[in-house]
C-alpha cells in the first residue's frame, strides 16, 4: 500500500512498528504536494525544510520511547486561520499576507504534543467567509474529484488535500458548516465538535460564539483519534468547556442496536437534489438494518436558521475584524493622511469583497436603532432553534440528514449570487447556532461521479453517539473511493 493512501491511524502504526519513519511519511506527503498542488492549490504555505527537521526530531523521540501515541510521526495539514508559531498564517487574506504568529494555537500545541508533524497551511475562504474557497486571496482550491468544481468551504484546502492524498488528515474550522460541507463535496470525513470542546485560543476569530476547530480525515477512526488529541479544557479560552471525559475512540464500535435516529422531514423538502436525498436515505436504511430505530419527525424552524446565522455571524465578524487596523500587525496602506485615513484605507485595501460585505452587514445590524430588530431578534431565534433541538434529542440519539443540498458546484457559479450561496448552508448552520457536534462522511456518488455527504448530528457532548453511528455505517459501506479511482471507473455508485 502506498504511504499516502494510508489512514493516519495506519501510518501511526507503521511508524510505531518501525517499518517506516516519520521522516519518510513527511517526505511522501511533501512529494505528493509537489506533484499535485500546482493544479489543486490546497496549500498556501509549505515549509519543506522545517517540516522535515520537525519529523526527524519526532522520529528520535519515537525511537527513544518518549512518543508512543497512535498519531506520533503522522503528517498533518492545518487550516490557515489557525496560528502556528513561526509559520506564516494568512487567513487567505491580503490583510495577513506577511503575518508570522508569535505563538501557536492551543490545538496546534496539542498536535505537537501528540507528535504530529505539520506539513503546511491550507487554503480557505478569506477569514473563513464563504462556502467554496473561492474568496481566498491566493486563488481558489480545485476539487480533486473534478477540477472544474469547487471543494466547498471554508475549509476547502484541508478537505481537498485529504481527498487528494496530499496528507492523511488535517485541521479545519467550522462556523456555519465549514468542515462538514467541504467534507461532503470532497468525499472525506469531517467532524465539528460540541462548542467549547477544542480551544479557540489562536484560532483567528470570525464568529466567536459559533467557531469550532475540528478534524478532517479519510475515516471515522482518524477523526476520533484526532479529536482525542486536540480536545481539552483551556483556561486561555473563556468559552472552553470542561468535559467529563476526553475518550472518543471507545465509541468506535460496529453496533447501533437500539440507537434512536431521527430524520427531519423538513430536511427533505424543496431544494434538495434527488440523488443526494436517495443516497442519504439509503444510508439510513443501512443503519436500520443493523438495529437502529429510525423514524422521521418534524424538527421545525429549519428555514429560520440561515437568516439568524448570517445576522449573528456578521455581527460578530464586524466586531472581531475591528482589530485589523494596520497598527500592530497585518497590512498597512502606503499613503494616508492621519490616523483614521490610515485605518480606513488599510482595511479597504486589505479585505476582500465578501469580508467587507459581512463587516458592513454586521455593523448595520449592531447599529443603534437596528440592534433590537435584527441582532436581538436573531439571538431570540437562536434560542428557539436550540429548544427545537432539545425537544428532538429527548426522543433521538442522533439526527440524520444530508450535509449539503447538492454535490460540488462548478467554479464561479456560487459567487455570482451570495444569497444563493448562503442558502447552501441550510443543513449545517443550525448545529453551530445550537452548539451541537456533527460529523459528515461520504455515502455515495452522484451521476456525475461526485461524492455525497451524510451528516449525523448529536446533542451537546454526545460525540460518542454520532461516532458510533458513523463508524457502524462506515464498516458496512467499506472504504470510500479515491478521486482518481472513481474517474477511471467512470463514477461508480455505491
Amino acid at each position: 500500500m502506498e504511504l499516502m493512501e494510508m489512514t493516519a491511524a495506519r501510518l501511526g502504526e507503521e511508524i510505531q512498528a518501525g517499518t517506516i519513519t516519520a521522516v519518510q511519511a513527511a517526505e511522501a506527503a511533501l512529494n505528493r504536494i509537489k506533484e499535485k498542488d500546482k493544479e489543486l492549490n490546497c496549500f498556501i504555505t509549505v515549509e519543506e525544510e522545517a517540516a522535515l527537521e520537525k519529523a526527524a526530531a519526532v522520529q528520535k523521540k519515537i525511537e527513544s520511547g518518549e512518543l508512543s501515541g497512535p498519531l506520533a510521526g503522522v503528517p498533518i495539514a492545518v487550516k490557515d486561520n489557525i496560528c502556528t508559531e513561526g509559520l506564516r498564517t494568512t487567513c487567505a487574506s491580503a490583510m495577513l499576507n506577511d503575518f508570522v504568529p508569535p505563538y501557536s494555537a492551543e490545538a496546534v500545541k496539542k498536535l505537537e504534543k501528540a507528535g504530529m508533524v505539520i506539513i503546511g497551511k491550507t487554503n480557505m475562504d478569506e477569514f473563513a467567509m464563504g462556502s467554496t474557497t473561492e474568496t481566498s486571496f491566493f486563488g481558489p482550491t480545485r476539487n480533486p474529484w473534478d477540477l472544474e468544481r469547487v471543494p466547498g468551504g471554508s475549509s476547502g484546502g484541508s478537505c481537498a488535500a485529504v481527498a487528494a492524498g496530499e496528507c492523511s488528515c488535517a485541521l479545519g474550522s467550522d462556523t456555519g458548516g465549514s468542515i462538514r460541507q467541504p467534507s461532503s463535496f470532497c468525499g472525506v470525513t469531517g467532524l465539528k465538535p460540541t462548542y467549547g470542546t477544542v480551544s479557540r485560543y489562536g484560532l483567528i476569530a470570525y464568529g466567536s460564539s459559533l467557531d469550532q476547530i475540528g478534524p478532517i480525515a479519510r475515516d471515522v477512526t482518524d477523526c476520533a483519534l484526532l479529536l482525542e488529541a486536540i480536545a481539552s479544557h483551556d483556561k486561555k479560552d473563556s468559552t472552553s468547556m470542561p468535559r467529563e471525559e476526553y475518550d472518543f475512540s471507545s465509541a468506535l464500535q460496529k453496533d447501533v442496536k437500539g440507537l434512536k435516529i431521527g430524520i427531519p422531514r423538513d430536511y427533505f423538502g424543496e431544494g434538495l437534489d434527488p440523488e443526494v436525498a436517495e443516497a442519504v436515505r439509503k444510508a439510513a436504511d443501512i443503519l436500520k438494518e443493523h438495529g437502529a430505530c429510525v423514524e422521521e419527525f418534524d424538527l421545525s424552524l429549519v428555514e429560520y436558521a440561515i437568516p439568524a446565522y448570517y445576522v449573528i455571524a456578521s455581527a460578530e465578524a464586524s466586531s472581531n475584524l475591528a482589530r485589523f487596523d494596520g497598527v500592530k500587525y497585518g497590512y498597512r496602506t502606503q499613503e494616508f493622511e492621519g490616523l483614521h485615513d490610515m485605518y480606513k484605507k488599510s482595511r479597504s485595501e486589505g479585505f476582500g469583497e465578501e469580508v467587507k460585505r459581512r463587516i458592513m452587514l454586521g455593523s448595520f445590524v449592531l447599529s443603534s436603532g437596528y440592534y433590537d430588530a435584527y441582532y436581538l431578534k436573531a439571538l431570540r431565534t437562536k434560542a428557539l432553534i436550540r429548544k427545537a433541538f432539545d425537544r428532538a434529542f429527548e426522543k433521538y440519539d442522533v439526527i440524520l440528514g444530508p450535509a449539503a443540498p447538492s454535490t460540488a458546484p462548478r467554479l464561479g457559479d456560487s459567487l455570482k449570487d451570495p444569497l444563493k450561496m448562503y442558502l447552501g448552508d441550510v443543513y449545517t448552520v443550525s448545529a453551530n447556532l445550537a452548539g451541537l457536534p456533527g460529523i459528515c462522511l461520504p455515502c455515495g456518488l452522484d451521476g456525475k461521479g461526485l461524492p455525497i455527504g451524510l451528516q449525523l448530528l448529536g446533542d451537546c457532548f454526545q460525540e460518542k453517539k454520532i461516532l458510533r453511528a458513523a463508524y457502524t455505517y462506515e464498516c458496512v459501506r467499506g472504504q470510500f473511493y479515491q478521486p482518481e479511482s472513481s474517474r477511471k471507473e467512470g463514477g461508480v455508485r455505491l
Partner: protein
Amino acid sequence: MGKIITDEMIDYVSILAKLNLSDSEKKAAGKDMERMLEYIDMLNELNTDGVEPMTHIFPISNVFREDREENGDSREKMLENAPEARDGMYRVPKTVEQ
C-alpha cells in the same frame, strides 16, 4: 417598513465599519444589504415575545482565573509583525494635533 438602506445609511455604516468604499462599491453594498435584509426579515414571521436572546449556548458566565503573568516578555516577537516600529514600540501617524 420604508427603505432602510439609503445612500446616507451606507455612508453611515461604512463609518462604523471603518471602510472607505468607492462609489461603485457603495452601490453594490447597498444592493447586497437590501437583498440580505429582505431575506432576514423572514425572522419577523416568528413570534419571539418573551424569548430571552441567547448569547451563549451554555450557562457559563464570568470565567475567572488568577491574574498571573504566564507568557513572559515577547515584545520583540510581537513587534516583528508590526507594519512600523521604533524603539520597541509600534509606530503610528500623529494622533494629536498641535
